[in-house]
Each structure stands twice: as structure tokens, then as C-alpha cells.
């Protein structure tokens, strides 16, 4: 277990009357990659600025247990951190000049600057652009320069605020891969903010979910993505189906939940009478043309109301007894034949794919 690199305690940030950030505790381990997700306005950028010592907090303590001993004054401490924003924000200079900026600010000598900058330009595939004026770069090239600028100072903490959001899909994918490959082997602690959950899952070992300035959940990506703590997190991590139901019976280890006309058994301890959300991913909903057979809580009939066919999958809205489900079928699988709007189908669910959340836990 790596030691704590950064610890936030009782952080409160106000913007006027509104509370932008309210986090009692958040620890980042040394060398880990932490993804921070949330809707717009959730406070992700504010959190990043607080971590980068760029934002004054109204209350709270930010500590760098490992660094504090070595770097006493705020400026040297701040210089162990590098931030990359969504916009490249390069200055009016050549690419080389921009990437070398961080080093020059730290009074690194010319020869060493040369020695350190060129390899990073190569690693991020912009070596050939070194002498070009920064303003002539494309979006992707500029963002690579911004990354290089941050990495060349060899920061102990790297903060990224939606770094790939402004790029076109091709550039974004390429840069994501290059970035991952580059930091994978290093000991840099990385915290990056994204509103794209796929990116969060791909890059982050741990995920933090923010909503309206509060930390909803913090855990390994498997935890957060498979067992969201509340309805909000479930929505953010991509559970398209969050069915509201009532617990009929409960025996402490399992319970029966009434959803629409169905009564579905789930495991877990939920007080009888409490409201729960059943979270099911769209791709965990299996849909086949209606097959006669015994009904079960996990197998029932429904009717396809609507089909939206995208390039890689078909998305269906299915009317079920008392509720509706969103299902998604991959095109490649070829399971789509025989399905069309208005068709009666058989829906089957894998019990393990159902994740239950107490409805009142959305605080």
C-alpha cells in the first residue's frame, strides 16, 4: 500500500453564497492514477485547483506528507506540481520555448533544458514541431505541447483538467494512448478530471465521483463502476436502468423487491418497506424474440417500443410489466435478427448484474 502523497481535510470553498466544494477527507496515494468524474459544475476543476495550490480555500488543510519536509516555502512546493488544462494555453513562442518554460522558470541552465526538452518532444510525437510558433499548431499538437511542458519538469504530482475534451475523437484516442503509455511506468502521482466515464475507467486506478461539490464515492474503479453508492453515482458511471422499487420481504441476507408487476429477489440487507433502486446496465439486458417458456423473476416478456441503431450497437426501449428497460445489443454479435419495433420479446437478466442501492442514500 503506497503511502499517502496528498491529503485533503475539511476542505470548503465558497463562490459567493454558493458552496463549490465541501470535502471532509480525500487522500491520494503516491504513484496512483486517480480519476475524478462528475457533471459540469460538480466542482471537479475547483478540486483540481485546490490540489495544485492554485485556489485559496475558505477552510481546510492540504498536506503533502512526503514533500512538506523537503520543500518548506509555498513556491517550491507548488513547483513540484504541474497542471494541464483543457485549453493548451501556450504562450507566444516556439513549441520548444513553450515546453522549456517550466524549466526556465525554475532557472535551469540552457544546456540542461536542451537535454531534457528534446526527448519529451519526441515522446509526445511533436519533435518535428520544435521550432514552429505555438499559435500555428493544431488542437491536438498544442495539447501535446502542453503535456510535454508539464512532464518535462518531472513533477511529483500531475494534475489534468479534462485535457482531451476539446480534441476531435481521433486525436483524443491517440493522445490518450500516448499519455497512458508515457506515465504508466513512472512514479508520478496523477489526478485527472474528466466527464467521460470511459476515459475515467481506462486511465484511473481509483475513481472519485463528485456532485455539487461533495464527494459521492471514492474507491477502486471496479467498486465505483460496478457498485455505485447511490443513484447519482450510478447514473454517472453509466447505469442506464435505475428502477425504483419497494422491498416486500427481507430476511437480513436477501430480499424481494417489487418492481412494477414483478417481484425480484436480490441479495443484501434492506429493511422491508424501504425504497431501493435496481441498477442494471443496458448491455446486461438480454433480449430475444419471444420464446415461450416458464416465466421467472429474471425472465419476462416485454414489447419493444423504440429502437435506435447506432454504428456499433442497437439501443432499445422495452415496455415491461409495470416499468420500462433500456437494452443495448452489440451489432457484431448478430443477436439482432428478428427484433423490430412493436415486437414482443423475452427479456432475461443475470442476477449478478443487478446492483441494488437504497434509495435514500442519495444525499
Amino acid at each position: 500500500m503506497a503511502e499517502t502523497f496528498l491529503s485533503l481535510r475539511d476542505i470548503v470553498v465558497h463562490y459567493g453564497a454558493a458552496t463549490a466544494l465541501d470535502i471532509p477527507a480525500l487522500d491520494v496515494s503516491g504513484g496512483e492514477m486517480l480519476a475524478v468524474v462528475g457533471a459540469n459544475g460538480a466542482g471537479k476543476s475547483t478540486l483540481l485547483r485546490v490540489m495544485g495550490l492554485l485556489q485559496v480555500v475558505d477552510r481546510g488543510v492540504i498536506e503533502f506528507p512526503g514533500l512538506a519536509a523537503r520543500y518548506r516555502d509555498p513556491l517550491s512546493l507548488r513547483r513540484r506540481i504541474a497542471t494541464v488544462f483543457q485549453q493548451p494555453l501556450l504562450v507566444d513562442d516556439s513549441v520548444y520555448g513553450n515546453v522549456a518554460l517550466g524549466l526556465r522558470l525554475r532557472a535551469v541552465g540552457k544546456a540542461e533544458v536542451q537535454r531534457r526538452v528534446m526527448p519529451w518532444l519526441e515522446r509526445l510525437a511533436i519533435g518535428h514541431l520544435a521550432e514552429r510558433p505555438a499559435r500555428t499548431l493544431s488542437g491536438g499538437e498544442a495539447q501535446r505541447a502542453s503535456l510535454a511542458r508539464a512532464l518535462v519538469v518531472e513533477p511529483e504530482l500531475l494534475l489534468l483538467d479534462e485535457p482531451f475534451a476539446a480534441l476531435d475523437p481521433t486525436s483524443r484516442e491517440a493522445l490518450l494512448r500516448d499519455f497512458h503509455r508515457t506515465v504508466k511506468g513512472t512514479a508520478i502521482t496523477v489526478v485527472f478530471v474528466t466527464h467521460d466515464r470511459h476515459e475515467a475507467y481506462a486511465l484511473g486506478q481509483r475513481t472519485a465521483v463528485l456532485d455539487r461539490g461533495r464527494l459521492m464515492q471514492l474507491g477502486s474503479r471496479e467498486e465505483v463502476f460496478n457498485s455505485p453508492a447511490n443513484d447519482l453515482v450510478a447514473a454517472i458511471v453509466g447505469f442506464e436502468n435505475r428502477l425504483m422499487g419497494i422491498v416486500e420481504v427481507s430476511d437480513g441476507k436477501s430480499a424481494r423487491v417489487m418492481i412494477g408487476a414483478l417481484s425480484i429477489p436480490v441479495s443484501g440487507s434492506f429493511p422491508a418497506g424501504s425504497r431501493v433502486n435496481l441498477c442494471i446496465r443496458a448491455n446486461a439486458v438480454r433480449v430475444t424474440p419471444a420464446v415461450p417458456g416458464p416465466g421467472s423473476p429474471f425472465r419476462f416478456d416485454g414489447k419493444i417500443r423504440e429502437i435506435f441503431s447506432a454504428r456499433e450497437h442497437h439501443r432499445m426501449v422495452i415496455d415491461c410489466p409495470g416499468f420500462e428497460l433500456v437494452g443495448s445489443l452489440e451489432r457484431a454479435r448478430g443477436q439482432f435478427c428478428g427484433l423490430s419495433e412493436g415486437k414482443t420479446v423475452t427479456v432475461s437478466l443475470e442476477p449478478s448484474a443487478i446492483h441494488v442501492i437504497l434509495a435514500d442514500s442519495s444525499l
Partner: protein
Amino acid sequence: MELLGQGLIKAFELVFGFDNEIWAITWLSLKISALATGIALLLGMPVGVMLALTRFTGRSVVVALVNTGMGLPPVVVGLFVSLMLWRSGPLGILEWIYTPIAMVLAQVVIALPIVAGLTLASFQNLNPQLSLQLLGIGASKAQLLWLLCKEARLPLLAGVMAGFGGVISEVGASMMVGGNIRGQTRVLTTATVLETGKGNFDIAIALSVILLLLTFAINFFLTRVQQRDPLRWPRLS
């Protein structure tokens, strides 16, 4: 037209004939206005930067004052500075009236709002996130300021040129606080007024030509510093 021709010939004669008085007047104009612009920069730029980058109660009032100040009529400034510097005025003890110092003072008052206002505008044009990014890459507050100045170099230098142009060409304040005293406070603009009043149009034109050439030369130099390779604009078909 004939008058203009005579003026040009006279200008040639005066400049290249090394007429001492003309050189003295020109040199004094340059000294006073350059010094005034320099002081206005020293005081005005920090004001402009502060207004651009910070927020405080009453800020909008200060900005409005700066913007109003940009359009101050020089002769009004001259009047008020005179009121201060006359023997009967509060600063009379300094005995600065009718000396070049008074002229520098008046010109600083004229140039200061121009420099502050244009600095403010040029900094406000910068991407607000840029400051954050530069801090996020390790800039100290002082380094940040320097980098922002470099980024805003274009409009900042325009502000310098506007400030200098405004004061080297003004006559109202210089006349009132300087007194147009021969050999002491006579500059190109006040001398031009004098000669025009006397009816010596050829000398007046000559002085105007010298003033224009001087201003052009300085602005040419500053423009070279300011401009960089222009962005290739696409040709509109």
C-alpha cells in the same frame, strides 16, 4: 501650397544648418516627453495590471476615472497643474512653475490615464485561464507578471506609443505651466504656436515638420519592437 513649400525648405535649412536653437528646442521636447512617458509607464502600468487582475470594491469607479482621464483636455490639465504650482498655490514653495519639471509633471498627468487604460485593456484581452496555467507550471507571482506582459506586448506597446504621442504633441499644458520661455521651456509645439502668432508661417511649418519626423522616427522604432511575423491571413477570393 507655396507656404508649405517654403516651410519645407525652411525646415531643411534649420535642421541641416544646425541652427542651435532649433536643436535645443527639439532636444528639450524629446527629453520632457520621453521622461514624462517613462514616469507614466512606471506608475500607470501597475495600475492597469492591478485593475485588470484584481477585484475590489470601487474598482468600477477607478476604471471609469481612468477611461475619463484618457480624454482629458491637455489645457485643462495645464490649468490645474498651474493652480498647484503657482507661488500662490499649495506647491508654490517648490518653485517648479515655468520650469521643465512642471511640464514633465503636466505631461505625466496627461499620459498616465492613457497608459493605465490601455494596459488594462490589453491585460483584459488575455485568456483568464492563462494566469492559472502559468502558475500551474511553476511561475512565481513576479514571473507571472512578466510573462503576461510579454503575452500582451502588442497592445501594451500601442499604449506606450499612444501615451508618448499624446504628450509630445500637446501644447496647452506645456504653454501654461512652462511659459514658453526661450532657452528654458520652449518646445516644438509651443514654439510653433509662437511663430504662427507672429505670422512666421515658414518657421512654424518647419517646426511642425520636425515634430512629425521626430514622432515618426520614435514610433517606427517602437513598432519594430512590437510587431512580429504577421499571421498569414487567408486570401479571400
